[in-house]
């Protein structure tokens, strides 16, 4: 298809441009690694003082954090820049996308794939490997499938969160930064054992904004942990939940684009 070629050209030019200034790129990579490390330090500092957090030990909690962040960063790589939607709408960037003969969302996604974000994916991949090595679990085919399904499903949930938040901007315009409370706030919730939350709040972050499916629930299933509130097979639902949430968010996005009246340019 000609479309595929167009995306390849767009992507290649975007990727090349990021490497044009090597010093700046190096600082960007350091920046990404710093943010990865401080999340590790935060959890490490908690476990420096206590042996368990909501029933999970250090390696188990580390797996929740690493797995959720790995999935989040992967989703973020593709759609994270949708958090720039308020700027796209204000500056009329979206109009430029609208007049081109390619789907708007696909254009937004390919417009800013950031190579620097790959460094954080690598870092959290390392933390995931560290946690898994410390846990010494028996590698069955089911465990491998569960882990991969969790990563894919978690990335889809993340993507759906950003697309939903981006869609909300069509109506919010100003004050759209409130969406950060759901995207980045949701990612923050996802990196801790869900048991830290009171039941009501936990239901919200499972049934409405399904972030406990990203790291915590797959970990419970993988390690065979007991959680008083959910059956142990719930971790298998991450991928179906991700697919459902993504489908809903795409429908909402389509609705938003169709009803968008323009930025007045």
């Amino acid at each position, binding site marked *: 298809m000609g479309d595929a070629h167009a995306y390849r050209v767009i992507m290649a030019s975007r990727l090349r441009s990021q490497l044009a*200034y090597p*010093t*700046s*790129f*190096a*600082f*960007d*990579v*350091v*920046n990404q690694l*710093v*943010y990865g490390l*401080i999340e590790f*330090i*935060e959890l490490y*500092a*908690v476990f*420096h*003082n*206590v042996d*368990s*957090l*909501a029933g999970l030990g250090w390696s188990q909690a580390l797996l929740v954090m690493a797995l959720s962040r790995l999935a989040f960063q992967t989703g973020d790589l593709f759609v994270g820049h949708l958090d720039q939607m308020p700027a796209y709408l204000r500056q009329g960037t979206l109009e430029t996308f609208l007049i081109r003969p390619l789907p708007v969302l696909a254009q937004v996604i390919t417009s800013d794939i950031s190579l*620097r974000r790959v460094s954080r994916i690598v870092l959290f991949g390392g933390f995931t490997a560290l946690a898994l090595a410390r846990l010494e679990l028996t590698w069955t085919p089911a465990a491998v499938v569960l882990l991969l399904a969790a990563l894919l499903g978690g990335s889809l949930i993340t993507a759906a969160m950003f697309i939903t938040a981006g869609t909300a901007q069509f109506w919010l315009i*100003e*004050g*759209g*930064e*409130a969406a*950060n*409370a759901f995207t*980045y*706030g949701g990612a*923050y*919730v996802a990196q*801790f054992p869900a*048991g*830290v*939350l*009171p*039941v009501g*709040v936990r239901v919200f972050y499972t049934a409405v904004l399904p972030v406990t499916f990203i790291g915590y629930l797959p970990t419970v299933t993988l390690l065979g942990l007991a959680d008083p509130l959910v059956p142990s097979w719930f971790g298998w639902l991450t991928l179906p939940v991700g697919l459902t949430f993504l489908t809903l968010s795409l429908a909402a996005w389509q609705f938003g684009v169709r009803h968008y009246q323009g930025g007045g340019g």
Partner: protein
Amino acid sequence: MGGAVGQVRQPTALRAFAVLFSAGFRRYATYRRATLAGAFTNTVFGYVRAAVLTTAITGATVGAAVSATATGGGSSAGSGTVAGYTAGQAVTYAWISQGLIASVMLFAWNELALRVRTGDIAVDLARPVDLQWSWLAGDLGRATYLLLPRGGPPVLVGALTTGLLLPHTAWPYLLGGLSTVLAVVVSFAGRFLVNLAAFWLTEVRGLVGAYAGIGAIFGGLLIPLSWFPDWLRVIAWSTPFPAMLQVPVDVLTARVDGATAVRLVVVQLLWATTMLAAGRVMLRLATRKLVVQGG
């Protein structure tokens, strides 16, 4: 004109400070909904942090901390304390730090660097008011405006959901107020230094971001510094970041008092003066390098 200029300079600088302070204040006052959105995000993060710390300390969820706080969270002895924090003190820390974060500005800030990149800095340098002085005035105006609309909601939600353990005497608030002002000045001095790097680098986004990230962890935003292992705590306290958040929160909530509190505020003052001075030196080096194109 000699002597006369020397005599009028002092009141002029002060008046310029007042005008720029009020301009910084009013500039942020125009973004009402953005401020509200930011306060909402701060509140969500405050809640999650309060929940994590509470569970770590008591083994129970944050909902249970309400009763723990109400029935005598003040007693710090026994098993309900981690790294010097009871559950009640930890949630208070989480909420107050979220309340101060916008004013203290521990986030990535690159406004000055953008002016360097576009060349607008040349206009700023040509003005009769000192560059650092005028940006400091504007930043203090910004911080003053943001204190209530950005700080109020998380603190209020904290008081309603988990309860707060706040001192009942005036002294911690007075000294804490001074400490907060100094925290903004130290934070500004640091951001000023980092932004000046734009004179040497084309793009400072990564540098500014990494600086803010290190500030978030060493300033005590993510977790109180006393929770760190010793070696990491030593590193954190040898940076200026604790003076930007951990210190004002500790003084305001009376976690430190008496001579210790005064000593911490004096250390803040030292950081502020040293870093402002370093900023002036760096600005001099930078302007020597500045070449304004066209004209």
